[in-house]
């Protein structure tokens, strides 16, 4: 009992981001057969922050995201979103509540154009019924026109993807596909954005663009960001709060600098513990 209290004290968010808690996971556990993908994972995300989850390959980061968005049903623990326990709420309804995400292995719809992919993001907020759709009269037409205008003026402009709006997504580079996936998530009018490795496989320039977009999303759109990322430079630069997972457990969490220097984090990444090499890696990333 006492230990829980102590740990919850030490992991309470720093005063700089004393906003409202928008999302929290509490004692989350999940296993696949013998593999314990998550073990009693607890942390919370403050509204308006960028929170990052780091950890070596197989640490359980994607499993954590899948539990938050409702794909996996954890064996124990709770997911709370907007002050509500969402354990029993199906993925589409969590999306409608304002939970948007992107995937580690891009999940765009290859048979559609960029524009249609982005429009799909708005699905849960549109009301067009089947009769309006078949006849495409009044409401359906107005809805589509308004959606198109908003996407063009707010999202496509913002993410600088004007030139590819009518391309089929299959033909795009990896970096652009990641950007379109972000655009689609933004079209969902999210309250929180879950990004699974947003800059994986990107070159330096693309990474810098993406970092700028994430910060703008937070600052200008007021959307909270929870991201999984291996690029330490990016994580340390833009995060307000960092959670480190290893073997499905939270080994430490706190301000980027605190986590970065934490000996457990360093040994988790290195296994054996070549500390200087890792320090160097962190610095280079910056």
């Amino acid at each position, binding site marked *: 009992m006492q230990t829980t209290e102590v740990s919850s004290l030490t992991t309470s968010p720093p005063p700089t981001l004393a906003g409202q808690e928008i999302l929290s996971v509490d004692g989350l556990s999940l296993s696949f057969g013998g593999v314990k993908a998550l073990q009693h994972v607890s942390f919370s995300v403050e509204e308006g922050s960028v929170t990052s989850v780091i950890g070596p390959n197989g640490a359980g980061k994607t499993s954590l995201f899948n539990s938050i*968005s409702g*794909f996996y049903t954890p064996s124990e623990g709770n997911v709370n979103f907007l002050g509500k326990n969402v354990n029993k709420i*199906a*993925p*589409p*309804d969590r*999306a*409608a509540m304002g939970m*948007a*995400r992107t*995937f580690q292995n891009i*999940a765009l*719809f*290859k*048979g*559609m154009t960029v524009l*249609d992919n982005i*429009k*799909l*993001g*708005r*699905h*849960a*907020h*549109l009301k*067009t019924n*089947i009769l*309006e*759709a*078949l*006849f*495409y009269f009044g409401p*359906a*037409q107005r*809805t*589509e*026109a308004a959606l*198109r*205008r908003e996407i*063009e003026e707010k999202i496509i402009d913002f993410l600088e993807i004007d030139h590819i709006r009518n391309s089929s997504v299959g033909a795009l580079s990896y970096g652009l596909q990641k950007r379109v996936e972000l655009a*689609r998530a933004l079209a*969902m009018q999210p309250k929180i954005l879950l990004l699974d490795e947003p800059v994986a496989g990107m070159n330096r320039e693309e990474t810098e663009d993406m970092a700028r977009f994430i910060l703008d999303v937070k600052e200008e759109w007021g959307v909270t960001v929870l991201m999984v990322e291996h690029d330490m430079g990016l994580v340390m630069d833009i995060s307000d709060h960092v959670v480190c997972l290893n073997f499905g457990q939270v080994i430490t969490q706190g301000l980027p600098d605190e986590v970065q220097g934490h000996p457990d984090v360093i040994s988790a990444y290195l296994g054996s513990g070549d500390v200087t090499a890792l320090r160097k890696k962190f610095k280079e990333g910056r």
Partner: protein
Amino acid sequence: MRIGTAKENYTADEALFDTNIQRGWMIALMIALFALPFMTGQYAIYLVCLVMINIVSTTGLNILTGFTGLVSLGQAAFMGVGAYTVAIMEINLGTPFLLNLLIAGSGAALVGIVVGLPSLRVKGLYLAIATIAASVILHFIFANWTSMTGGVSGLSMPPASLFGLELVQPDQVYWIIMPITVLMLFGAANLFRTRIGRAFIAIRDRDISAEVLGIRLLRFKLLSFAISSFYAGVAGGLWAYFFRVITPESFPLLMSIFFLAAIIVGGMGSILGGILGATFMTMVPEILKMMVGVLSPIWPDAVAVMSPVRVVVFGALIIFFLIFEPDGLAEIWRNIRRFFHLWPFKT
């Protein structure tokens, strides 16, 4: 030649036919459809009506299989539901044909929803088997619910009437079939300009990530089944008005395979593909038959000898097109158009 298109605003960009040339062709096609009965004989009109009925049903299946990715071999049985509904209403109630067709479509849609229920759990071939099972059950009902369906001998029904005029000949029934076909094709095309059509495509491409975007899988899969079988039901109703004799053998399983072949040959997930595929599948056997007919004055045994050859040629043509252009006739058509748009600058 036409290079690029400049759009004034987003609404223009969202239009179904986005250039004046396309709109011009569309108007020409409409005029041709209205002039047709005055320019050709009964046999040609007969074929056109048959093609149109098949286009409606094929387009329905394309919405389900081509756009939503759910394979069904129940389309002919759903047509049967529509055909029997129309016949029973026409015989017993004598209600107006538009109402009968609407109820035929709705009845088939309800049956479609029930048949579609397994689609949340099973996909691909397994779903196809489930729809075959449904076809067999429906066939059994058609053949054995004698008080309603007339059992194995079926039903024969009075013709539709329009302003007191009985529509008996193909060039008369045409005035029901043609406008309804056109309307339903526009409906299908419109569907894919809205959230509903986009959700269908998303489910086809990857249904797990569709869920994260807020798409409720079961609801939209069932909606796709409902729309698809509504199209089949209306097509079956039109079929009933066209032939006016309906038996359990009118809608065999083979016919469902015919529709599946039509969307594959024409182009899955393309409205134009459904039109081209249904036309190809209906007309090619007829054209081959005519060619054999031409031979018979010179070669009296032609019909007997060439009939099996005809079937083989038909099969070979299907396979040839599939190898030549796996994306179907619609893709061939797009390539031709692209060629002429850019010609002579680029080929």
